[in-house]
């Protein structure tokens, strides 16, 4: 049995929220930019994701999809930077992957989608 789950961070380029599709826009029309993390990265970042859940009232988890909306991206960047400061080297590498995705979302003023 294949238990391997993908851990995909995605920035959609042409939609502001997966809860607000513009008229006529289909799921397959969304242009995603992907930043994949590993299961080890997910475990390294789990405590941070729990902080996101509490701060943003969301539920990031394995086998779930969640969205960090554009208005929360800067706060998520700051929380990730703070988390990285106290983290050991291996965890820091995982935070860098997350920061790449968050900063891309911030640059584009788009959400970050988490498909786990």
């Amino acid at each position, binding site marked *: 049995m294949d238990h391997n789950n993908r851990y995909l961070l995605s920035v959609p380029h042409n939609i502001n929220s997966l809860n607000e*599709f513009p008229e006529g826009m*289909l799921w397959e029309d969304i242009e995603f930019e992907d930043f994949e993390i590993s299961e080890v990265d997910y*475990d390294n970042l789990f405590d941070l994701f*729990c902080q996101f859940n509490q701060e943003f009232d969301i*539920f990031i*988890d394995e*086998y779930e*999809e969640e969205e960090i909306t554009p208005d929360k991206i800067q706060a998520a960047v700051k929380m990730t930077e703070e988390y990285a400061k106290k983290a050991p080297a291996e965890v820091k590498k995982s935070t860098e992957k997350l920061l790449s995705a968050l900063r891309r979302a911030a640059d584009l003023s788009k959400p970050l989608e988490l498909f786990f």
Partner: protein
Amino acid sequence: MSDSKSQYSSGSAGQKALAQLDASLKKKLDNASARAARFHTNWQPVNLNDFVDRFAPGSTAQRSGSKIIFQTDGSNLQVVCDVAAGSCRMKDTTIHSRRCYLDINGNVLGNKTLPGGKQIGRPIEEYNAMTHFRILKREEM
């Protein structure tokens, strides 16, 4: 007919006991419990025995962290049960990136049809509500 519900309950109890010794697993279970407390009233109830017999017949429960998974050998469908949330989802493993969870009849839910007949992407909240199922307790089955 397999009793998947018993396998789920037994596996769930085992993982909950393990979580008392494993802080990381406990945190994952707590996280799932919080999600269930928030959303479980939106989830369609399912009889796990019937659900597994339909989509993963002949399979046995496999533990994977905070999840218990049923999958028939050679099948692309997984019934993924959450230990703490008392919920399950159905995953199509041939969909490798997004929207890989199916509705209660095994349909892909990327889009929906509006009353006028036009199609539009399905919002994530609606998608999540339609792809989570509440596992009926034994006394409800």
